[in-house]
């Protein structure tokens, strides 16, 4: 699967798509594939302050729980309520299933993240190990 070039990626397999000072955050196709059937997504409350590199929630597959790490710092403005009833959407459309929207504290934080090309390379290297 191609990783959309309109966003940035983390080595923890999250994506972030910025639009001015607001951004959507989700997990990558590689992440959903590794996790398997997703049955539960736990997200922060609207208004919560989150920090780049720190956990903002968790995603559970049948097998295991995994923490979600925020690609950037900011304030949560919206969470994707559909995922409470249809967590499998993350499997079906990982790059379309945003988990939360945040008001970015410092949009320049995104400069340090991976481009789609670099992320794809990173995933390929990880798989090779």
């Amino acid at each position: 699967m191609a990783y959309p070039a309109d966003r940035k990626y983390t080595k923890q397999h999250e994506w972030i798509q910025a639009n001015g000072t607001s951004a959507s955050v989700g997990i990558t196709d590689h992440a959903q594939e590794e996790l398997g059937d997703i049955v539960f997504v736990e997200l922060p409350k609207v208004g919560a302050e989150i920090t780049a590199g720190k956990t903002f929630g968790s995603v559970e597959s049948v097998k295991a729980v995994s923490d979600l790490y925020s690609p950037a710092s900011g304030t949560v403005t919206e969470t994707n309520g559909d995922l409470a009833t249809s967590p499998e959407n993350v499997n079906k459309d990982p790059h379309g299933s945003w988990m939360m929207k945040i008001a970015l504290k410092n949009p320049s934080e995104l400069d340090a993240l991976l481009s789609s090309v670099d992320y794809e390379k990173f995933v390929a290297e990880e798989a090779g190990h």
Partner: protein
Amino acid sequence: MSSVEVTPVVRKTALNAVHRQMGAKMVDFNGWDMPVEYPASIGCGIINEHMAVRTGVGIFDVSHMGDIRLAGPQALAAVQHISMNDASRLAVGQAQYSALLYPQGTFVDDVIVHRLGEDEYLLVINAGTREKDFNWVRDNTSQFNCVVENLSDDFTQIAIQGPKAVDVLQKITTADLSAVKFYWVTRGTIFLHHKSMRRYLGDTLIARTGYTAEDGFEIYVPSDEPTSAWVWNRLLEVGKEFGLLPCGLGARNTLRLEGKLPLYGHEISDTINVWEAGLDRFCKMEKPEFIGRAALEKAKAAGVKQTLVDLEMTGRGIARDGYKVQDGDGREIGYVTSGSPAPFLKKNIAIAYVPPDFAAIGTAVKVEIRGQGVEAVVVPSPFYKRPKAK
């Protein structure tokens, strides 16, 4: 602190290459490189695999399970001495769930004992305890006139499970499967015809057993790679019309959990005794003697301090292995041995050890999930029971 570095040897079943070729996600299970699930691109994934077994049929490579054969004039006496169920009740061709116990009445392992002949028994044991079990069986049966053989590497064991398992397997064997009752075994020829190639395996052991709380069979075929792959692929082929899916250890775990079937290292272990695990009906105290019996007699009189219960999460959250169980006020009272979403029941369920005071159906408890007490309730056991055959 210094330690000796030991490079773990990863063990592989004869079907390893086949699983990898199919794109299965592989995991280390007790030192074995095993498929946890097959890819979504062929309709698999834990949930689909689980549902296939509940409503249709699925196949599992369970060759990592071990096999110990006891044969000779005193084979029955040996089996009686080392296992808690009463093997003298087995007719030739019959099998029973049982366990090997330490003198303290705790578990070496749980096993299925098959009586294959007049003086011949086959114990099917867990992967993680293969060597331990074999040594233990050999050491504790030396006084009996019987041979003890480790046949673990001789068989590729494939489980065909689900209400349509009988239809799939019947397509490739002349054995009359309708005549084989649950927990009985037969021998039959397996036909592996494919296009112009004609092959067959004579005298193959076919047991109507499994670990999915569903009807099904386990077949024991020679463990060379070509034969193993041939049987696996033939099952996939003839199973197509029944919606058969290959299934990994992920679905195997959720299926056994819905049926509340114990897993060594979780519900049973070398520190848990038979009464705590609630396996009373498989432990025949009226049998003259077996290892662990004396300790179990005392333990019975003393009463249990913890007992296994089935929990259903009523609050939002998934209980996982090792999570703490609390009473309504948040005091720690026990722990989860196995917990997961239940794909068929569509609930979050768990098995847990709690004091007997908390074991009554309907008792409200909490499971600590990432620092939060999430509500759960004790429900009737097992969570899932397969519908009675018509």
